[in-house]
């Protein structure tokens, strides 16, 4: 006999420590004892994300959400709610602070991701069923090009690729000079290169038609009939789905000649990039499409005036485009209501690193880091402490625990010395070494610098060398000054945004974690125990019970000791692999 109600008990890490297991057993026991056991199923589920209010119990199908549940509440849930049909008011999510709590499940607003995970990306009709191409159809028949730009202006949409330039302005520049040019191009920048960012890939894989529709809208607004999608070849599934989407759009008369009988022509081609970070920079991207080596050139002239093959070119990021059909359809004012004063709408973040629920989240601008990390992301695994979040990839910086409550938008991130970037958000806990992480980003910048301008080519390498010395315990106090002395001129003298932003991780971490740099330099110590050269493993004789696991696992045979007696590490021969530390179940192997 089918169940009528389901009682979901969260069994995420944090709720488990909050006795969710006992609650589960109690609920199970109570149902088995009563006659309702055939009507209700008690289920253990994955984390709900609202760990700060755990343990959590949710009743389906009526979607009642109980927070801070205790074992003794089980009786009330079963008797009052399941049997008598009266939800237990006192356990329900309180709305006394509606701005914060009741928005939990609605903290995310999915605009750019509206169709991801819902429609079949390989079937254009499912996109059409969810108002796909309605915006294009409306624009072509009821709006003038300038009306579209006006809607974008009202919406306040800014480039989601990182710099945050107002989208309507880019379109307007091109629109204004379209009569002087014989050809105009629309480009979609899908060269997503930031470590830890994958929102563009997910949009193209989950909802490719939305990008095509937006590019056609851009074509109509700016007087172009040709678009290019520049996508890196590492995204084969996205490329395959884009090709399918384009074929279907042409078949339905939504791309190509005379779209929907309006007389407007627009078609799109795909250009594959070999995956150089610099090719995400718009002038380098244009050079790459032209068949040149992907290197930036000085701006102005901006691509809006002189872009691909010298013609006016509108170039936007995937996520920017994904927002546009919805903005045109629902009006710029609707979009403008979401977000903060200067940063409108939503932003997709790719939440990765030391976080329970890694994934893509789309939140209104102005959501705090705490809400993203603790409410949506479910907090830090294994009860560790939050240390910092790295945003904006190699061009960005860190946000620390003291800024957890800062509303995130373009301005506040900039003021903190970080940046929005494409929206990668890498969460770090107490086990991560800030100097090591910074070295990683500089390493990336060294590899990816195109080498055209000296400040970037030489500066990144110089800074990386200094960081390497510091992590090896060979740092001096002068090094910190040298880092600062290199960083500031690089920001001013580099040719493109990549070189200008490359020192950001250093400046930002020096600002908030200078003591950690000093610990490496002055005390020859890595507080997080990451930098191998600065780490010493020792066995605490008070804790060690002599189980011999460490001595058996040690690859260099440098741990000795008798059974059931404390062991000792021979420091001269220790290769600092850390296997003994990982292997010890008692926490006797300590890092200093």
């Amino acid at each position, binding site marked *: 006999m089918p169940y009528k109600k389901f009682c979901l008990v969260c069994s995420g890490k944090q709720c488990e420590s909050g006795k969710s297991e006992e609650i589960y057993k109690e609920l199970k026991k109570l149902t088995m004892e009563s006659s309702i056991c055939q009507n209700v199923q008690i289920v253990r*589920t994955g984390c709900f994300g609202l760990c700060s209010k755990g343990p959590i119990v949710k009743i389906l199908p009526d979607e009642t959400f109980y927070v801070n549940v205790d074992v003794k509440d089980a009786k009330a849930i079963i008797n009052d709610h399941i049997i008598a049909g009266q939800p237990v008011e006192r356990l329900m999510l309180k709305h006394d602070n509606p701005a914060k709590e009741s928005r939990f499940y609605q903290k*995310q607003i999915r605009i750019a991701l509206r169709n*991801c995970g819902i429609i079949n990306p390989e079937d254009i009709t499912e996109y059409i*069923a969810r108002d796909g191409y*309605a915006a294009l159809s409306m624009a072509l028949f009821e709006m003038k090009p300038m009306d579209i730009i006006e809607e974008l202006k009202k919406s306040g949409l800014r480039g989601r690729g990182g710099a945050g330039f107002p989208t309507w302005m880019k379109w307007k520049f091109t629109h204004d000079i379209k009569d002087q040019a014989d050809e105009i191009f629309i480009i979609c920048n899908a060269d997503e290169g930031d470590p830890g960012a994958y929102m563009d890939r997910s949009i193209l*894989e989950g909802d490719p038609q939305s990008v095509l529709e937006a590019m056609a809208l851009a074509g109509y607004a700016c007087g172009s009939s040709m678009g290019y999608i520049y996508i890196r070849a590492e995204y084969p599934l996205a490329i395959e789905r884009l090709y399918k989407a384009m074929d279907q759009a042409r078949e339905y*008369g939504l791309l190509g000649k005379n779209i929907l*009988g*309006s007389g407007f022509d627009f078609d799109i081609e795909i250009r594959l990039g070999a995956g150089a970070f610099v090719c995400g920079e718009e002038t380098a991207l244009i050079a790459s499409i032209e068949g040149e080596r992907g290197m930036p050139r000085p701006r102005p002239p901006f691509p809006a005036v002189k872009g691909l093959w010298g013609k006016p070119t509108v170039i936007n990021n995937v996520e920017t485009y994904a927002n546009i059909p919805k903005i045109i359809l629902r009006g710029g004012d609707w979009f403008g209501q979401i977000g903060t004063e200067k940063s409108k709408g939503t932003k997709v973040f790719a939440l990765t690193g030391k976080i329970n629920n890694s994934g893509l989240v789309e939140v209104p601008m102005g959501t705090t880091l705490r809400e993203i990390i603790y409410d949506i992301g479910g907090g830090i695994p294994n009860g560790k402490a939050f240390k910092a979040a790295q945003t904006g990839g190699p061009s960005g910086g860190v946000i620390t625990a003291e800024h957890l409550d800062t509303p995130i938008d373009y301005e506040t991130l900039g003021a903190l010395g970080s940046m929005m970037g494409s929206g990668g958000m890498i969460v770090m806990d107490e086990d991560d070494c800030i100097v090591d992480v910074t070295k990683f980003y500089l390493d990336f910048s060294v590899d990816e610098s195109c080498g055209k301008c000296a400040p970037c080519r030489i500066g990144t390498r110089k800074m990386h060398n200094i960081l390497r010395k510091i992590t090896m315990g060979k740092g001096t106090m002068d090094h910190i000054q040298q880092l600062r002395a290199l960083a500031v001129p690089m920001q001013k003298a580099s040719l493109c945004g990549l070189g200008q932003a490359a020192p950001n991780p250093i400046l930002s971490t020096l600002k908030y974690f200078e003591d950690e740099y000093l610990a490496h330099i002055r005390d020859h110590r890595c507080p997080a125990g990451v930098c191998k050269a600065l780490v010493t493993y020792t066995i605490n004789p008070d804790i060690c019970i002599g189980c011999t696991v460490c001595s058996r696992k040690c690859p260099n045979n440098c741990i000795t000791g008798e059974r059931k007696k404390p062991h000792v590490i021979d420091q001269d021969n220790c290769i600092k692999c850390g296997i003994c530390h990982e292997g010890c179940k008692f926490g006797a192997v300590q890092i200093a």
Partner: protein
Amino acid sequence: MEMNPREELKKLREKKRLELHERKGNENIIEILIGMGSSGIASGAKNVLQALNETLEERGISNAIIRKTGSLGLDHAEPTLEIRMNGMPDIIYGKVTPDVTRRIVDRHILGRELVCGHVFDKPAQDVVKEPKHAL
């Protein structure tokens, strides 16, 4: 006279929307959504899809529609399956393996009970509501 392509688009939208709507109301139809973005596939969504197809055939379930979608954002719980059927709440299953898939078919679809330990909630309700005006 040839029909206006704009009208055709509108008609297609209405027809398709009704179809999707009907699917939800129709007691016989079971909708299964499987997250097939890069991250889903990397964590084994293709094996899950295969197991799903096989199990549905073995059990003689012919009224199930499998729809492949992109990532739904729950990357930590992939591969994911969402089951929508009449008489059961819409449920997203996470960390699904071929073995779990068979359990989902037997217990959720045939037995009408949830599969313990693999139920994940939606990260958020889709608050972008369908606009009232149909174009």
